[in-house]
């Protein structure tokens, strides 16, 4: 197994915290509390045996870890976490990298690409951005020459759909729990970028009022 082993991905499949809690109940962790460098970040949980030479940080699935390198002696790992090439006397260094939002920028990339929208078959998924917030959006590509794009927004802010000057132009579509709204354009955008930028302008305007 390479040193690029993805610890976060592994944790998603093997949530180890319950396993450790069962094996080592009621551990006094007060001796770790003075070590500021190893304080939990974003709610990390530490469960280590008191004889452990160095603190180990385990993260719940979905957390962001900013530690660069962790050394985990195989001796203290639960069986589920022991890897094929590890023995009780070997050590395995696991590198956990900070996860950054994906963004592909190049000189010719379009607005939707620069802002993290992703293409999936005949649709684009991403977030409309306004005043520091993101609102999940969907752009469907249709075969219609008259209306080649259909724009949707999920969970729009109340300022936009109830009080904004364009409030009548947002129509709920699909299952109610999705809170998905189709956006009507009186002047249809000729490209995806124009539609996204216009919706963001309207969002910003509604949130500013």
């Amino acid at each position, binding site marked *: 197994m390479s040193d690029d082993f993805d610890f976060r991905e592994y944790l998603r499949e093997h949530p180890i915290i319950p396993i450790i809690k069962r094996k080592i109940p009621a551990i006094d962790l007060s001796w770790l509390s003075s070590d500021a460098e190893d304080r939990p970040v974003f709610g990390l949980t530490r469960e280590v045996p008191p004889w452990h030479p160095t603190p180990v940080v385990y993260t719940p699935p979905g957390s962001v870890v900013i530690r660069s390198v962790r050394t985990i002696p195989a001796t203290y790992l639960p069986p589920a976490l022991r890897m094929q090439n590890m023995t009780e006397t070997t050590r395995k260094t696991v590198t956990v990298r900070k996860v950054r939002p994906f963004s592909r920028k190049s*000189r*010719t990339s*379009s607005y939707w690409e620069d802002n993290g929208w992703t*293409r999936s078959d005949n649709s684009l998924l991403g977030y409309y951005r306004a005043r520091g917030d993101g609102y999940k959006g969907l752009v469907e590509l249709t075969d219609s020459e008259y209306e080649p794009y259909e724009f949707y927004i999920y969970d729009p802010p109340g300022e936009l759909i109830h009080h904004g*000057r364009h409030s009548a*132009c947002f129509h709920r579509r699909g299952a109610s729990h999705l809170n998905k709204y189709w956006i009507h354009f009186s002047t249809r955008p000729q490209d995806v970028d124009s539609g996204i930028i216009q919706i963001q302008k309207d969002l910003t305007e509604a949130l500013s009022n």
Partner: protein
Amino acid sequence: MNIKNLTIVVPGADPNAPSTANDITIQPGVTGRQAVTQIGLNEKYFLAKSDSTPIAMDQDLFPQVSDHEKCFATTEATVGKHAQAA
């Protein structure tokens, strides 16, 4: 030197079509309208910055952009029935 280099990206007609990047150099006094005309676009196009902030097309473009900034040419689009007011 009192010039700024600007890249104006014109999106393709659909997501499959590649965007086109146009590099221009501007001096103080050039408006956004003149800039888009310079790269062969008509008056229906507007400029927006990377954070979707619109650029005032009839005002001096120079103070509105940074050197080597990437801007996007967009066409007019209006949500709802307010085309006249927009």
